[in-house]
């Protein structure tokens, strides 16, 4: 399992009172952290963008832009939303705490801050941030692996990226939530990561596979699932990796699931995977037009392999320019 290696943390202290900044700086530096200071909200946002701190300490009341607004902006930016934020409030400021929770703050400290409490909170949140970073790095390595697999086959160039885009578009059309859309995006890249276990001779074969070769190819969802299993951050992506070749009528693989047994996100990736494969040129056939591929998907839906509603929604998302041109 992945563990975060100990490293120095970078902590941003944002407070318009110099004595408070000095106290925090001194205490945190003596605890081994690198400290950046900001005297107002705008300077804090600049420092967050520039220095990517591991932990952010925000005073609520600051000139220009207050700490609550800084927190809201930090938490709404995908690049910084996992950065832990500690709001520093007065002891009696319950309303500030409530507004801080609404703004996405992770922890609170009351003034006057007790040094030991400050150190313990920052140490704890630094550990959390380092673990998040380690998981991000592992996931980035997985995506790199998936793109490397894609690069083995020149005819699939750009497949993962297109799949991610199509899947998210269909997810939006089906009114899925942000967590599901995020899983679809990552699943678009990672769905075939298990093909690392499929030899080039099979993966790149310019013709029909023998039964034995197909049996080996059909193992890639399980291999991919095993690769993703140790990463807790991929728990919502694993059903896509494992089940994107399952079909509603039970004719898919690896488990022959049917109906509602096939996870919704895997159904979505299954539809857009087939579409992208058909509209891409292969050594053994020319690419179909989007309209031809759309008709194929409709026939597959009529025969019970895909949801008709999902296929129709997908074709709608492609728009007239894509589906009707040819």
């Amino acid at each position, binding site marked *: 399992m992945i563990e975060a290696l100990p490293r120095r943390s970078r902590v941003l202290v944002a*407070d*318009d*009172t*110099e*004595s*408070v900044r*000095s*106290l925090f700086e*001194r*205490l945190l530096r003596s605890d081994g952290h690198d400290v950046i200071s900001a005297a107002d909200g705008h300077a804090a946002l600049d420092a967050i963008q520039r220095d990517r701190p591991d932990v952010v300490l925000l*005073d609520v*009341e600051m000139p220009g832009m207050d700490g609550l607004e800084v927190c809201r902006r930090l938490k709404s930016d995908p690049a910084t939303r996992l950065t832990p934020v500690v709001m520093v409030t*007065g002891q*009696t400021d319950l309303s500030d705490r409530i507004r801080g929770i609404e703004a996405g703050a992770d922890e609170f400290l009351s*003034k*006057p801050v*007790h*040094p*030991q409490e400050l150190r313990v909170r920052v140490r704890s949140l630094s550990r959390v941030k380092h673990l998040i970073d380690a998981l991000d790095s592992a996931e980035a390595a997985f995506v790199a692996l998936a793109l490397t697999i894609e690069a083995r086959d020149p005819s699939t160039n750009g497949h993962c990226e297109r799949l991610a885009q199509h899947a998210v578009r269909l997810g939006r059309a089906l009114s899925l939530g942000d967590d599901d859309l995020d899983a679809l995006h990552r699943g678009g890249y990672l769905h075939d990561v298990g093909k690392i276990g499929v030899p080039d001779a099979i993966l790149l074969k310019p013709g029909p596979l023998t039964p034995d070769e197909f049996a080996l190819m059909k193992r890639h969802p399980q291999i991919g699932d095993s690769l993703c299993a140790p990463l807790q951050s991929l728990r919502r992506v694993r059903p896509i990796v494992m089940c994107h070749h399952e079909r509603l009528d039970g004719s898919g693989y690896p488990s022959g699931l049917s109906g509602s047994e096939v996870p919704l996100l895997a159904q979505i990736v299954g539809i857009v995977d087939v579409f992208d494969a058909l509209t891409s040129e292969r050594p053994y056939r020319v690419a179909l037009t989007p309209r031809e591929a759309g008709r194929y998907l409709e026939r597959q839906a009529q025969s019970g392999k895909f949801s008709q509603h999902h296929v129709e929604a997908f074709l709608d998302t492609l728009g007239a320019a894509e589906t009707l041109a040819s």
Partner: protein
Amino acid sequence: MTDSSSRPNRDSLEWTPARMLSRLDGDVELAQQLAAIFVDEYPRMLDRLRAALTSGVADDVRRAAHALKGSVSNFIDGGPTTTAFELENRGRSGQLEGTSAVLDRLERELAALSTSLRQFQSKGAPPGRES
């Protein structure tokens, strides 16, 4: 008869390094550094509060008093911390009548604290008063 709003808070006269040093794990150097910064910065914060009260903008009073409270609370629980909090609440509620007497009290309390902090800066922690 003395108006209670102008009477000095007894706590302001009772500042000792002991509580502060206890909070700072006995770090005299840090305590002296904080004292020096505070002695330098509080007149500007007081000016800001005074200007806010003169302008009569309640939210400015609340903000200025809040900032001063946060700074002075590093040194003392009562006295000027309590008085700054009182002005912060006046700003929050928009009731600024009679605040000049409260401001006078705050100035006296801060002056007393400042004198104590200057002595502490020059002498360090008195023997036997660190804890």
